[in-house]
């Protein structure tokens, strides 16, 4: 039987980082591996340099808020341009103190993505050269994509129930 992409990635990971794997699954046809946060940067570097995986491109990086778990996940999506294979890595951080090591030492392109994740979710990337807000106004005091904050601006006066049936 042919080895699936997920099995291959997991077997490569198990060579060195077996105890860091929380679980591995296919989510929406996408190999997804959840990992402990301590060695995440080391693992991404390993997947980048390993000749079997060669995930040399960081497609994206973002935060996800899980209010029911009181956790913020950071998701990394890697791409092997030669084979077209992709992988998604997730690591979970406690909402009280969401800190994780910065990926900028491995992928310099992570710089702005980590600033964006800090801007919207308040994830603190340790070792980031310039961790400050990137898209929102500097005066903003909230992390707007955390689900406890309302999406809508609270100053509108023209939206009342009579007009919108709410």
């Amino acid at each position, binding site marked *: 039987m042919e080895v699936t992409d997920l099995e291959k990635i997991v077997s490569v990971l198990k060579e060195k980082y077996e105890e860091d794997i929380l679980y591995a699954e296919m989510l929406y046809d996408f190999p997804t591996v959840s990992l402990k946060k301590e060695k995440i940067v080391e693992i991404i570097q390993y997947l980048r340099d390993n000749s079997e995986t060669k995930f040399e491109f960081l497609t994206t990086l973002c935060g996800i808020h899980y209010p029911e778990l009181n956790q913020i996940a950071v998701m990394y999506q890697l791409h092997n341009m030669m084979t077209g294979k992709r992988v998604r890595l997730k690591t979970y951080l406690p909402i009280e103190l969401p800190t994780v090591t910065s990926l900028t030492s491995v992928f310099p392109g992570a710089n702005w993505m980590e600033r964006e994740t800090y801007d919207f979710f308040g994830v603190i990337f340790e070792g980031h050269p310039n961790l400050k807000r990137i898209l929102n106004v500097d005066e903003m005091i909230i992390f707007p994509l955390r689900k406890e904050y309302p999406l809508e*601006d609270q100053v509108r006066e023209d939206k009342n129930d009579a007009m919108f049936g709410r």
Partner: protein
Amino acid sequence: MSTLTEDIRMADRPEGLEGQGFFATKLQTVVGLARKNSIWPLPFATSCCGIEFMATMGAHYDLARFGSERLSFSPRQADLLMVMGTIAKKMGPVLRQVYEQMAEPRWVLSVGACASSGGIFDTYSVLQGIDRIIPVDVYVPGCPPRPEQIIDGVIKIQRLVETESLRRRDSPEYKAMLNTYGIE
């Protein structure tokens, strides 16, 4: 035979006292007439309303017919600030600076739902109407408004320009109004 000069519509002569060899009227009326027909707009276009503005300036609608042939891309020489499109909160200080750089007398036309009230973008990142940071003279509704509506807005601005007292900008009321926006 129709000549070109017959096709050109001149501005109407203002009310005044007329006799042989002289015509007397108020200075304010003459200045208003001149200003009204030579407004230099500064387009501050950020989204789809800006596309409608391009149509407004194009040959078919041609805002030049109303004396606004010359767009000013520097706020220093502009009379009319036309804000067309969504203004994000991060853009707010930029818009405000542009307004502050304009010389008096200056007018502001807010084109479209987004500039006037935030429009559909009721969200934490979008300014809910530019009148939260700068004074606005005329609002044009629409999402986006058609060129006819933008022209209608400009004509309403022209009426304000024509009838404005020459001393209005020096009045304490005007200064107090600017102060409510924190503009000196």
